[in-house]
């Protein structure tokens, strides 16, 4: 009897957690924010696209082939497809880059959202595979979330599609399923990141913050004074571990959600300011702020 009741309670809880109709606003906010960050990235990269993507760029010929996975789509495959039309490598790089920016712009605006999500994901993936040796965290998260946008109803609101359909802010179970999958994915990434960090001694004794801030590639300010305040660096490392390891648990209850959203946004704001990882920090702030900070409920209770 008790087991049956427990099972019933769990099924009800899971059903409410996964299927209670929700607004697509968090997904739409994320769609717009990621599109803007990636458009900004494309703008910043405009002067080096041939250096990065051409076989006559920084990584040339056979070397480029050895660093890339030839089974994944890349610009050389686009060249092969367009070869009958006499397309050059320059044309193919410009074509893929232009198509990526256009599809990303329409994705942000929410016009033919699902199709544009597919095209943005595909062109982003082609560019990523072509310059595999230059990819970093921003590209990985962009690839993951552009793929999700193909499947989740992120164009249900705050989009041209919604305006054309005359829908303002519908509440649907599919939006809830999509939101939960994306939220759980983010929880897994922070947990994995926290566990890996916690295995490094530098994260516990304060050396990590110090060394990262001293590396020329990340150095934005003179932070040498930290050497005389090791406790400050140590506590910052511990707080990062608490924020990442605790994310999986404390981002869910209403009473701790606001604190964790602020901690994570603060952590990535610090990465933007002190390590100069502007776009990576921006996209990470965006993920938590949109998925856990924008309300999907009828009474706007996300951060209350």
């Amino acid at each position, binding site marked *: 009897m008790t087991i049956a009741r427990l099972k019933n309670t769990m099924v009800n809880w899971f059903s409410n957690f996964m299927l209670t109709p929700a607004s697509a606003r968090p997904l739409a906010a994320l769609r717009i924010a990621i599109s803007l960050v990636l458009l900004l990235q494309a703008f*910043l990269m405009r*002067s080096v696209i041939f250096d990065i993507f051409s076989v006559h760029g920084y990584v040339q*010929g*056979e*070397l480029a082939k050895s660093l890339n996975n030839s089974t994944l789509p890349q610009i050389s495959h686009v060249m092969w497809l367009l070869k009958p039309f006499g397309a050059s490598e320059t044309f193919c790089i410009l074509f893929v880059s232009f198509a990526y920016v256009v599809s990303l712009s329409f994705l942000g605006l929410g016009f033919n959202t699902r199709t544009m999500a597919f095209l943005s994901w595909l062109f982003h993936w082609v560019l990523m595979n072509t310059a595999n040796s230059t990819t*970093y965290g921003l590209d990985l998260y962009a690839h993951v979330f552009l793929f999700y946008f193909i499947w989740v109803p992120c164009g249900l609101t705050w989009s041209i599609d919604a305006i054309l359909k005359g829908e303002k802010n519908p509440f649907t179970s599919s939006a809830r399923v999509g939101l939960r999958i994306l939220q759980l994915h983010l929880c897994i990434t922070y947990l994995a990141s926290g566990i890996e960090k916690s295995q*490094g001694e530098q994260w516990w004794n304060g050396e990590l913050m110090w060394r990262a801030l001293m590396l*020329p590639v990340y150095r934005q300010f003179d932070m040498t004074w930290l050497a005389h305040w090791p406790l400050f660096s140590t506590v910052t490392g511990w707080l990062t571990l608490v924020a990442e390891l605790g994310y999986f648990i404390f981002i869910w209850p209403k009473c701790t959600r606001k604190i964790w959203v602020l901690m994570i946004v603060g952590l990535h704001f610090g990465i933007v300011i002190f390590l100069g990882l502007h776009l990576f920090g921006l996209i990470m702030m965006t993920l938590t702020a949109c998925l856990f900070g924008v309300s999907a409920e009828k009474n706007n209770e996300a951060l209350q």
Partner: protein
Amino acid sequence: VTAEIQSKNTWLKVAVVAGFCHLFLVALGAAEYEFSDDHWWSRALSYYGEVTGSSFGYGFFAPGVTSQIRAVFDVVESDSHQNTLQLFDESNREVAIRIGDIIEQFMADDVSGDDKMKFQRELSASLSSAVFIRHPGAKSVTIRLEKFSPISMADYRNGVRPEWQPLYSAEFVNHQKLSP
């Protein structure tokens, strides 16, 4: 209407199950589990990981910070004037990070011995070639790779200061300019 609701519910259940299967693969990827090439299904799951990003790891700055490598180029122009330059404008952070990633390949751990030397030679030739494209009249380009290893806070307090240390150097000559 009832049939339509039931059909919708079925699709939602399928979506939930598919979503959790996907998240299971995300968790495996985050734990850095790699599928082998032994079976068709493990190859298929591996490819699925690339398509969806579920195979990605998330160990940024883990387990710790090690060192940085930079490439500096000494270019001898046709009038024998020498310039020292880098590949990119450091003010554009996005470009600097990406090109820094290419240069970091120089110390990649997945090759060793003669293969590593061959790879380093090819990479330095490739980067130097990009400099020749920008300076078509140059007589020679010397690539200097330098390593910066951060020191501990205690060492810094004791007066030690980190410096760029030479790691590798190679000169590439434009033979076209030398021929009569």
